[in-house]
């Protein structure tokens, strides 16, 4: 009996101990004010917003005061005041103040634990609240309520065979395919491949022809992937700065304008002759590499050449990848999803190269895709870039599909 009593006592004690350790302390009744400055369309702000909402469920007296600064000038001025009061440099959003501690930017692994620890600190020991005295503006509803309250059926279409298709989940894959495909018709990327094919066609060894050609295409795709991944990470890193988003919007507008200008002025759909000296150097490099007797040296040479040529040509085709990675950054995806969409983009970007290469290798005749498609892609791409540019600048939330 004594043993049973002792066991019951131990279990009850352990329960109370565990409960006591993990339960929210009940003594902190005074509200903890968190001042959350954010911008519409800022992906890091949306991430932090979601984190704060979760935190609010754990700490019932955590009160989040939310201030949108892109559209609300009063809030932007308040942010400057807060920065001055806390002697902190405010360079962008998200910007969060709890007590007298400011958190600039947001990273789930670095900032989130610090915010949590500050909330706990203010929970256990009452923190000072220097921002409260500056507060003249009535805080708004928490940001991104729109997405939570909106009815998902409004963003869906009923396709008879498939059923209800959610447009939000469809938009990003579709955009990846469309932009990649349009970017693929960029003549910058095609001319080197055509010259390489002209050299490969004269080669007797069929296996060597295929391997060298495919090595060039795969290496080109890899360079593009590295470039886009680097660009994406830069945008994710600097995403909280408004001017980065505006600059990319500007690139989209300039790129769209250039494409439309080309569509209207280059009506004969011809190939532009530019950079004669550079072209001759590349041709010489290809000739030397392809005619190399040692297969491994030729293969290595082709890969190196693909890297070099595509790095040079990146400037020529930087517009659409920059726009696409900005859209990806706006969508707060899981890391694998970012790279998956980049992969989809690049697959469709390389599709026309693959078609030209396969047909040429099968028929042993040079094949080109009519430049009329290039013209059409300039028209569609130009309009699309102008639209996306305007959205990135004025309505970035439209491009947040998820």
């Amino acid at each position, binding site marked *: 009996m004594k043993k049973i009593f002792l066991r019951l006592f131990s279990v009850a004690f352990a329960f109370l101990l565990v409960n006591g350790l993990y339960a929210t302390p009940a003594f902190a009744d005074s509200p903890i004010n968190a001042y959350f400055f954010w911008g519409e369309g800022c992906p890091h702000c949306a991430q932090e917003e979601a984190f704060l909402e979760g935190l609010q469920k754990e700490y019932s007296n955590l009160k989040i005061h939310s201030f949108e600064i892109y559209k609300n000038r009063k809030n932007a001025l308040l942010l400057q005041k807060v920065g001055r009061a806390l002697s902190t440099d405010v360079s962008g959003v998200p910007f969060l103040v709890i007590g007298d501690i400011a958190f600039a930017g947001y990273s789930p692994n670095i900032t989130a634990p610090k915010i949590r620890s500050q909330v706990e600190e203010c929970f256990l020991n009452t923190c000072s609240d220097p921002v409260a005295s500056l507060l003249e503006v009535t805080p708004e509803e928490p940001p991104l309520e729109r997405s939570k309250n909106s009815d998902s059926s409004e963003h869906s279409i009923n396709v008879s065979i498939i059923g209800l298709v959610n447009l939000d989940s469809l938009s990003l894959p579709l955009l990846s395919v469309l932009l990649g495909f349009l970017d693929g018709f960029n003549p910058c990327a095609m001319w080197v491949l055509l*010259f390489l094919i*002209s050299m490969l066609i004269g080669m007797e060894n069929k296996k060597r022809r295929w391997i060298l050609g495919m090595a060039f295409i795969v290496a080109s795709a890899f360079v593009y992937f590295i470039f886009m991944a680097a660009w994406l990470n830069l945008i994710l890193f600097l995403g909280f700065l408004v001017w980065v988003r505006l600059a990319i919007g500007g690139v989209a507008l300039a790129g769209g304008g250039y494409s439309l200008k080309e569509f209207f002025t280059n009506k*004969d*759909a*011809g*190939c532009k002759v530019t950079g004669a000296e550079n072209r001759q150097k590349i041709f010489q490099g290809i000739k030397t590499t392809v005619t190399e007797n040692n297969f491994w040296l030729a293969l290595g040479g082709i890969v190196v050449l693909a890297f070099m040529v595509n790095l040079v040509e990146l400037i020529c085709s930087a517009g659409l990848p920059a726009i696409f990675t900005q859209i990806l950054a706006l969508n707060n995806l899981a890391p694998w999803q970012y790279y998956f969409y980049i992969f989809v983009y690049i697959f469709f970007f390389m599709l026309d190269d693959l078609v030209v290469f396969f047909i040429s290798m099968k028929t042993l005749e040079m094949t*080109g895709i009519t*430049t009329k498609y290039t013209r059409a892609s300039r028209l569609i791409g130009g309009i699309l870039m102008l639209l996306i540019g305007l959205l990135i600048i004025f309505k970035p939330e439209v491009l947040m599909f998820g």
Partner: protein
Amino acid sequence: MKVLKFGAVWCAGCLVMKPRWKEIESEMPWLETRYYDFDLDKEPVEKYGIDFTLPVFVFLDKSGEELLRLTGEVSKSKLVEVIEANKDK
């Protein structure tokens, strides 16, 4: 009449034009044509001032004077029309 065709292996539009010309040349065996590569045949390229867009098709009369030139991708019907209109010149 004679047609000088200027193109390059790296120019997709030039490659698209090749089968069109092949058809015309087989249908009009009397037509004299000559192909010049932009990167290899420097002399005719300079002589005819080919410097901005490819492909370029220069139509010459019997005395070698330039009648007209067409640039970019041109339809087969347009080429036939031009050849028919100038074949006796």
